């Protein structure tokens, strides 16, 4: 039997159903991996050995008794420390909420529970999901399994590290400006930010009401599709969730029109290995029958700034009381970024929201009228060395942090779905990441394209 911890989520679920392996054996192996890597990777804030093993044993008993199973029956998952589970701590990677016991269960957790998941523990994250590096002043940073000297990316830092190290079979992250896609890109895995409103946020820690999205980090595109299919759907407990058509793949890559950017934003100043991986991704899709066109985009530098302005204003409103009364309990950089939003006047914030609608209409009319999906890098560079982006609250803070998320943030502001897919490894073992972006509710099209990239990048023969 191959190493079960290298299996995909789908393969693991099937193996349990087929009794190739028990849930207990798989969960025990995942817990051992989590403990073995914790000193070097710091992916977890809490590892829940006892309850995980008890739940796995119960899953095996249910299977033996022929009880109806969900699609994730007995498979161990772990999630970012920001999803409420009734009676358990949701710490948000913070000092302020470190002992907060949830009174309810987040809808996404309830849906994965119904599918049969086993909880392994709470994963590390940037404090209150603020920050694309994954640094955390209270819990320490998670380290990148591909190269521990480099950042995992954030804010879903532990989700990236746990998935890349084989400690779990899927992990929920959250994405307000790139917090799923950036760790996926840094750690060489898959991550999807769905269309705004596709997934309920009830019971999830809020940062930005307009841009927060929940999605999975996984090792394969099919796994991301599986998890998204389980958590998606309107929820009366989240009035911002939207009743949308189900995710359905496009039948083939052939005949799809892919927009690429060969100069200007998304192309200039790229790390050569990132640039090369996008050229290769373009070739793969072209060979599969897609037509490649030059994409026309709205002014991205402005879109990035509007995204940051809106997200941080909304975040500051949520944190205002603690910023007044408990400022010392924040990490220096997180506090400075939230307080920074006091420099945005209310009419300017509201104008940015008006511009959001206008820019979406313009993007649909100008960009997606001529292409079905965009192919751009997830990040302009390979994951940076941690010391190179440790800027604290210095003058370099906004430039460096916004720079890391410059290719992800615009699509958060526009509310579009975006999928990050790892491309073949560099000589140093890092994985440049391609980002596929489509119009609203077109996640299925992204999975079709992502699967084509993954098949060639991984040498898969199916």
């Amino acid at each position: 039997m191959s190493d079960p911890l290298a299996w995909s989520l789908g393969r693991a679920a099937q193996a349990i159903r087929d009794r190739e392996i028990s849930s207990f054996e798989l969960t025990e192996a995942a817990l051992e991996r989590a403990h073995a890597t914790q000193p070097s990777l710091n992916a977890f804030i809490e590892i829940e050995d006892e309850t995980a093993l008890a739940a796995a044993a119960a899953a095996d008993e249910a299977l033996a008794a022929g009880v109806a199973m969900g699609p994730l029956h007995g498979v161990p998952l772990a999630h970012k420390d920001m999803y409420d589970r009734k009676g358990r701590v949701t710490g948000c990677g913070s000092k302020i909420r470190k002992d907060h016991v949830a009174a309810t269960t987040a809808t996404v957790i309830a849906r994965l529970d119904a599918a049969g998941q086993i909880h392994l523990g709470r994963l590390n994250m940037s404090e209150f999901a603020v920050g694309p590096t994954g640094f955390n002043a209270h819990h320490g940073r998670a380290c990148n399994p591909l190269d521990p000297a480099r950042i995992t990316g954030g804010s879903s830092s532990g989700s990236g590290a746990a998935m890349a190290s084989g400690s779990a079979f899927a992990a929920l992250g959250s994405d307000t400006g790139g917090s799923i896609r950036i760790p996926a890109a840094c750690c060489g895995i898959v991550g999807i930010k769905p269309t705004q409103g596709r997934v309920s946020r009830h019971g999830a820690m809020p940062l930005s009401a307009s841009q927060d999205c929940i999605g999975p980090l996984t090792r394969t595109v099919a796994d991301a599709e599986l998890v998204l299919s389980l958590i998606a759907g309107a929820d009366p407990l989240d009035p911002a969730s939207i009743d949308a058509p189900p995710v359905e793949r496009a039948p083939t890559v052939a005949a799809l029109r892919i927009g690429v950017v060969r100069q200007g934003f998304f192309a200039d100043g790229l790390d050569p290995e990132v640039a090369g991986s996008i050229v290769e991704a373009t070739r793969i899709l072209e060979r599969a029958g897609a037509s490649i066109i030059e994409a026309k985009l709205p002014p991205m530098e402005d879109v990035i700034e509007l995204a940051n302005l809106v997200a941080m204003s909304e975040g500051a409103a949520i944190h205002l009381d603690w910023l007044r009364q408990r400022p010392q309990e924040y990490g220096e950089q997180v506090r400075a970024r939230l307080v920074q939003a006091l420099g945005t006047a209310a009419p300017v914030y509201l104008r940015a929201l008006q511009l959001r609608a206008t820019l979406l209409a313009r993007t649909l009319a100008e960009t997606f009228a001529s292409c079905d999906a965009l192919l751009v890098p997830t990040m302009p560079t390979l994951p940076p060395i941690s010391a190179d982006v440790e800027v604290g609250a210095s003058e370099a803070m906004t430039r460096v942090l916004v720079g890391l998320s410059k290719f992800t943030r615009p699509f958060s502001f526009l509310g579009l779905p975006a999928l990050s897919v790892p491309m073949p490894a560099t000589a140093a073992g890092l994985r440049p990441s391609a980002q596929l972006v489509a119009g609203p509710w077109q996640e299925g099209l992204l999975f079709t394209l992502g699967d084509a990239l993954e098949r060639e990048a991984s040498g898969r023969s199916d």
Partner: protein
Amino acid sequence: MSFGEDDASRLLTAVLERPPEPGEARAIAEQVERARRHAVATNLAGTGELFTVETHAHAATLRGLAQGGDR
């Protein structure tokens, strides 16, 4: 006239009822300029159509598309 760190310090003290921590006043002053440059002094909306655009229009567009509306 630009909005400097002293102004930011007074704003922060008035709103949060505490003096700035290191880096906060500079970050606020910087944000005033960034917001002006990218959200106000732009022509992103073309000529004046923001007058009738509601702040929830983005979500309304996504809902409309989910129900089969045209782009």
